[in-house]
C-alpha cells in the first residue's frame, strides 16, 4: 500500500514564523497535493505538483509556497504564519485515487 507520511501531527507556531510542513510518499507517484481542511469549507487545494520541480497553484495559494526537489517529498511553506492559517493540512499523493497522509493540525498563535 502507498504510504504518505506527514512529519508532524500537531504544530503550534507564532505569528510571523516561517513554517515548514513536510510530506513524503513511498510509491514513486508523480502527483502530490497540499490541501487545507476547515469546518464547513471542505478540502481546498493550496498547491499541487506533477513532477520534480514542477508546481501549480491551487485555489488558495496566497501566503503559501511549495518545494519539490525530490519525487518523494513535497513541502509546504508558510512564509510568515498568520492566525488565519490555523487549520488542518493534508498532503496527498495520487496515481489513480488519492492517498492522504494523517494530516498536520497547525495552530498559529
Amino acid at each position, binding site marked *: 500500500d502507498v504510504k*504518505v507520511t506527514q512529519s508532524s*501531527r500537531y504544530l503550534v507556531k507564532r505569528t510571523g514564523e516561517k513554517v515548514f510542513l513536510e510530506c513524503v510518499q513511498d510509491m514513486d507517484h508523480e*502527483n502530490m*497535493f497540499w*490541501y487545507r481542511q476547515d469546518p*464547513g*469549507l*471542505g*478540502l481546498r*487545494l493550496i498547491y*499541487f505538483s*506533477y513532477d520534480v520541480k514542477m508546481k501549480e497553484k*491551487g485555489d488558495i495559494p496566497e501566503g503559501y509556497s511549495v518545494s519539490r526537489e525530490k519525487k518523494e517529498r513535497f513541502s509546504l511553506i508558510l512564509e510568515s504564519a498568520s492566525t488565519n492559517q490555523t487549520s488542518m493540512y*493534508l498532503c*496527498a499523493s*495520487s*496515481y*489513480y*485515487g*488519492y*492517498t*492522504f*497522509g*494523517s*494530516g498536520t493540525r497547525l495552530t498559529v498563535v
Partner: protein
Amino acid sequence: TQLLEQSPQFLSIQEGENLTVYCNSSSVFSSLQWYRQEPGEGPVLLVTVVTGGEVKKLKRLTFQFGDARKDSSLHITAAQPGDTGLYLCAGAPSSGGYNKLIFGAGTRLAVHP
C-alpha cells in the same frame, strides 16, 4: 468552476438504520470517488465509479454513479457505529485525468449504539 454539493451536511442515526448520502453537480465528471475520514486522520478512498449508471457494493455500502455522470449516491444498509465519520465525494473533471480532484464539503455521519 465545477462544484460538488453534498447532502445532508450532518446525519445522526441509530444503529441498524439505513441512510443515503447524495453528491450533486451541474457538471459532468469522468469519474467520481468516495472517501471516509475518521477524526484526526486523513480521508481514505472507499470506491471509484467511472461509468454512468455504475453501481458498486462494498459490504453494506452501495455506491451509484448517475447516468449522466453528474451525481452520485452512497447508501448504507443497517448502519453500525463503525460507520461514523466524514464522507467525502470527489470528482475528476471531464477535461482532465485524476489531477486536481474536486471535493464536496462532506457529510458528517454519527451512528449511535
